[in-house]
């Protein structure tokens, strides 16, 4: 018995047609379809239309346009799904967590200004690190080797190999994007990296690194001593020392040489360093073929005992902060201070074949470093700091000088000498001027190409705002 049949009026309805209980809200197809759509559009108006039409922050002071190659690289980045593991913005807490090398600053709305950064690449996952501030931390040859096979540069990496995904040209575009995507602060770092690369390769007589994935098919580069003309009476390692804070030049290892420390050092070395420096520590790792200058060889006992820039402090500083201009990265936020010192202890045992399998390095393998007479003479004669300038706390405000001091931390304001090619002069002023020239060139090229493309640009005054060096540099 249906309800209708019970009704006194006895209205007749076709079989199967049941009148809806009248006391309840009735949903008809029109109410479900159109009503649902109205509800939908009300919310869409609030959460889509409104923000899109009211939220258009002006370009931040740090913002830069992208060059043509960088835009192409960005499109490759998007089309190949790189954003599924790499986010594209630094959150406030990332900076608060003090990961200064990865996240020197919080992304601001104005960093995403303009029409170059489409589609958005904010991402939702970080299997790899955020890349919004990646520019300039690594030189191009590191990037090439890393794209070819990420394990070459970081044995712990989970990143897929890109060797079959991109042509030589495409990988260069991708690198251009990565190296210029981080605004002015990133561009400044990149300029510092390019400048240092010039100094380092000229100083050691290295040819430029092979482009694209060509490195995979070549040989490990060697420095050509014949084109070098080291200035007489100058310490050979002086240009190298210019990239190490002078407080570390004569420093010893604070940790005792124990089996435990050496073993931990070996473990870390095998976990992180073998991609470039090789399983034997001879600088012939699989990634070495891409790099110019080639990675350091630790197997020479002479270097270990008395090389002018191979003291424990020198090694420590290079691991901690990296060596701008070479593929040596900063491991400062990846390794603890103690672990870095342990790696330094272990490196000093490599000439005694401590990297062989199943061998526990012994304290007797350790080669104690003594500063050479030349180094001590150099420190005494040419490196006197006028008026205690090394302790001068007056802050430097010129960003190019700040960057020069970052990549050449061993130079003091009075230092000025020729590097080993016998013609390039090295001083903080020269470095700052060189970095500024490279920076201006990069920025102008990006602006010109963006203008030619018809991209949306802020006024020229934005371009004139000098870059900043964010974070704890």
């Amino acid at each position, binding site marked *: 018995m249906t309800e209708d049949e019970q009704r006194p009026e006895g209205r007749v309805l076709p079989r199967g047609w049941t009148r809806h209980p009248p006391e309840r809200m009735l949903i008809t*197809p029109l109410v479900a379809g159109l009503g649902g*759509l109205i*509800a*939908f559009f009300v919310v869409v108006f609030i959460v889509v239309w409104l923000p899109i039409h009211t*939220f258009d922050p002006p370009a931040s002071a740090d913002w830069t346009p992208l060059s043509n190659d960088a835009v192409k690289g960005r499109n490759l980045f998007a*089309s190949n799904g790189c954003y599924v593991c790499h986010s594209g913005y630094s959150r406030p807490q990332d900076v608060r*967590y003090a990961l200064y090398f990865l996240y020197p600053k919080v992304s601001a709305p104005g960093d995403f200004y303009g029409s170059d950064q489409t589609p958005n690449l904010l991402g939702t996952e970080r299997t790899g690190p955020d890349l919004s501030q990646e520019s300039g931390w690594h030189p191009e040859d590191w990037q090439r080797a890393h794209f070819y096979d990420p*394990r070459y540069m970081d044995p712990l990496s989970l990143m897929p190999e890109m060797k079959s*995904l991109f042509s030589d040209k495409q990988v260069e575009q991708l690198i251009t994007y990565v190296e210029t995507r981080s605004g002015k602060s990133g561009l400044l770092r990149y300029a510092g990296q390019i400048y240092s690369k010039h100094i380092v390769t000229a100083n050691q007589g290295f040819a430029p690194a092979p482009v694209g994935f060509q490195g995979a098919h070549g040989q490990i580069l060697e420095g050509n001593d014949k084109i070098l003309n080291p200035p007489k009476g100058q310490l050979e390692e002086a240009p190298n020392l210019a990239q190490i804070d002078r407080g570390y030049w004569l420093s010893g290892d604070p940790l005792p040489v124990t089996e435990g420390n050496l073993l931990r050092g070996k473990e870390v070395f095998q976990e992180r360093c073998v991609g470039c420096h090789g399983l034997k520590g001879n600088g012939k790792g699989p990634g070495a073929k891409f790099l110019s200058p080639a990675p350091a060889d630790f197997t020479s006992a002479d270097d270990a005992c008395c090389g002018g820039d191979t003291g424990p402090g020198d090694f420590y500083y290079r691991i901690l902060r990296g060596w701008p201009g070479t593929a040596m990265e900063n491991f400062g*936020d990846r390794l603890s201070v103690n672990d870095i010192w342990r790696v330094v202890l272990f490196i000093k045992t490599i000439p005694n074949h401590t990297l062989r399998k199943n061998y526990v390095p012994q304290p007797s393998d350790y080669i104690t470093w003594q500063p050479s007479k030349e180094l001590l003479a150099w420190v005494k004669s040419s490196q006197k700091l006028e008026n205690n300038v090394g302790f001068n706390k007056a802050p430097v405000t010129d960003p190019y000088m700040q960057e020069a001091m970052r990549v050449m931390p061993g130079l003091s304001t009075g230092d000025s000498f020729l590097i080993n090619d016998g013609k390039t002069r090295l001083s903080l002023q020269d470095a700052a001027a060189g970095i500024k020239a490279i920076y201006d060139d990069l920025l102008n090229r990006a602006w010109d190409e963006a203008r030619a493309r018809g991209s949306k640009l802020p006024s020229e005054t934005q371009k004139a705002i000098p870059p900043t060096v964010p974070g704890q540099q």
Partner: protein
Amino acid sequence: MPGEAPAPLTKRADAPAPFSDQAAKHWFLSSIVWLTVVDLFGLVLATEFVTPAAFGDISWLSFSRVRPAHVNGVILAWLTMMYFAALFYMLPRLVGTRGMWSERLGVWCCWAWNVMYTLGVIGLLTGHSQGREYGEFIWPVDILLLVIWCVNIFNILATVQIRTIRPIYVSVWFFIASPIWLAVDYAIGNVIWSPGKIWSAPSGALTNSLSDAILNWWYAHNLFGLWLTPMLLALTYYIVPRVTNTPLYSYTLSLVSFWGMAFFYTGVGDHHILQSPTPAWLKTIAEVSSWMLLVPVFAFTINILGTMKGNWDKFFTNLPLRFTMTAFFFYFLVNIQGAFEALQPFNRLTHFTNFVVAHAHLALLGAFTILGMGVIDYMVAQVYQRPLFSRNLTEWQYWLVTVGFTGFFSVLTLAGFQQGFSWAQGIPEVNVLPQLHAYYIARGIFGAMIVLSGIVQAVNIGLTMFTNTAERRRRETLRVAEIVAPPVSG
């Protein structure tokens, strides 16, 4: 007489004309195939997490290309095809027609949809992508998808128009509204009026990056909010009362769940980018909406639990119902979890970690996929009018996916906390990777169980199609009957 072959089954003369179900059959058979394909994509990804160089330099198996293929495949190939199959099966039964307005149109759309996804996935695997998460398919594929989608909407509305039962049941509200919502959502979210470079990025995106991000995540979340979830509700509203032979507990609660979903789900998208430099008021709306969402969720939960009251014995005996109620449980869990995840303090910890991956799988695998498996098992039995080939295989399917998923989810949740806490201590991503290795291995093993479950189901359904299980079941029953109660000889 004993020993004599029993007479074959004959149809009753007055039996109603059977439902056509041609469209439903095509859609669910396709979806079963895609389920295994997209599961295997997932297994490729899980393998690459353990050994990143597993597939050497095969460019189309690169993680970054397979992941969009996996995500889009799960949503658009497996789940969407399964949902349309269920819709084409249930709608005629709910509105009193013998089939869809045009079953033939539904079949054609099925083939077109298969072509669409194949093209899309070939594009993704060869580096032709729009590069917007969840909206990766290139512009021509987007257009093809929308055309098929609109034809399906037309078919649905035409079927509703020729209905013979005037009041429309709760499921039908969703069958009408949800495809329309998604069509609009997909068109707006993929910015289809801006084809751009067409074959690769940038294409189908707003030029302003942050606006594009807001639109992107609004769209991505509404794939779940306005299509996958409402359809889960619709299917559950159908299966539970139908299998238990119990009327729905409350009409009013179903109203709350329908309108609550329409209002609160649409605005939560920005909770995917809570720490991004987007407007704070939008984040607040997203957070509040994410909590208000619990209103329709609880309405639905109470409604289904009310309907299940007194029927829990069938949870153990009826496998489609067991799948449905398991999915229902995971659905409830994903909403509670999601509400917390959308809060700033919790989000700061879990964002960017595997916790989010676990959450996404809780919805797409735990809720939608397990429901879909049960509904397909139910439909196969009904459409072919015979029991499934093997109950044991179905049990295996259930336990493989349930145990596999539960393990998968737990492992990724733990890995997410590991990542979140490590990052909060200032440990960079790369240093956490070695700690995750064990989790990733476990994830791969549990993932393999899930793949196996889909294959077991495909085998079971294939055997059901090609064996006359009805006749087999009848003979078995008779054989048992002869043993238990031998016929009395005259």
